[in-house]
């Protein structure tokens, strides 16, 4: 790992970006499993606004930043994370949805919810960590 990759300004920026993300998840009440489940039961479409609003801002940033800036403001380069559609993506997404529909918690809110004192989410967090472990152990 390069030192530039772990510099203090970059770490603080990452922390601040995460804080904004977590604050947004909290204010939108996505850290409440009940609210997520009420979306999945078509009783409250708020989650669509959350996702739509987030996608809009990210879309602008991903499109504009590489055009306006030679590199990120704190160094390194603009990364890309290409997604692929294959059997694993399909099966993984399907299983993810089954779990999400059962508990109403996805990775972001499982982490953020702890900051709002929702200790029950530690169960979800443990489940997610265990699931990720088993996936890695089964992978070739």
């Amino acid at each position, binding site marked *: 790992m390069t030192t530039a*990759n*772990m510099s203090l300004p970059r*770490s603080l920026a*990452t922390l601040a*970006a*995460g*804080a*904004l*993300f*977590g*604050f*947004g998840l*909290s204010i*939108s*009440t996505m850290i*409440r499993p009940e609210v997520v*489940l009420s979306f*999945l039961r*078509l009783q409250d479409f*708020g989650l669509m606004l959350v*996702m739509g*609003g*987030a996608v*809009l*801002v*990210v*879309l602008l*940033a991903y499109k504009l*930043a590489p055009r306006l800036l030679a*590199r*990120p403001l704190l160094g390194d*380069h*603009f990364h*890309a994370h*290409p*997604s692929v*559609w294959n059997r694993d993506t399909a*099966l*993984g*997404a399907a*299983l*993810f*949805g*089954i*779990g*999400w*529909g059962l508990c*109403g918690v*996805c990775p972001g809110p*499982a*982490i953020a919810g702890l*900051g709002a004192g*929702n200790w029950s989410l530690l169960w*979800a967090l443990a*489940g*997610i960590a265990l*699931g*990720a472990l088993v*996936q890695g*152990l089964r992978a070739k």
Partner: protein
Amino acid sequence: MNLSLFPLGWQHYLLGGLLVGAGAALLFVLTGRIGGMSTVFSSSWSYLVRRPFFQQARFVDSRGWRLVYALGLVLGALVWWLGFAGGVREATAVPVWQLLVGGFFVGYGARLGNGCTSGHGICGLGSLQWPSALAVLTFMATAFLTANLAARWLA
């Protein structure tokens, strides 16, 4: 029956979503990183598990900042909780077994499918990648089915 699409109001959803996006956007503009949340659950295992899968560069090289990013999430929620929500502790009535078992599938599925609601849903759609759009449609469909069947059978 409430026929409103947003019985609890809509402003906080939109504002929160814009802030979530602003967080991922800030991460990208300042550091160039793509900030989905599920990878931290694989990359952190690389500290403990020696197997080659977890020792891949994509996990080992990013595990430090991913943990810092996750810590930021907790911090942001803490600021909201203490500064804006009056410090009333959040709680959920979802049973422990559902959180644990559901969580297991969330973790296994997100890592097998290389993304979750933030990875495919926000970052993937935000970079206009059709495989992510298919992944979102897939998990929305199975989540919708599961949540409605669970409401019927488990309530």
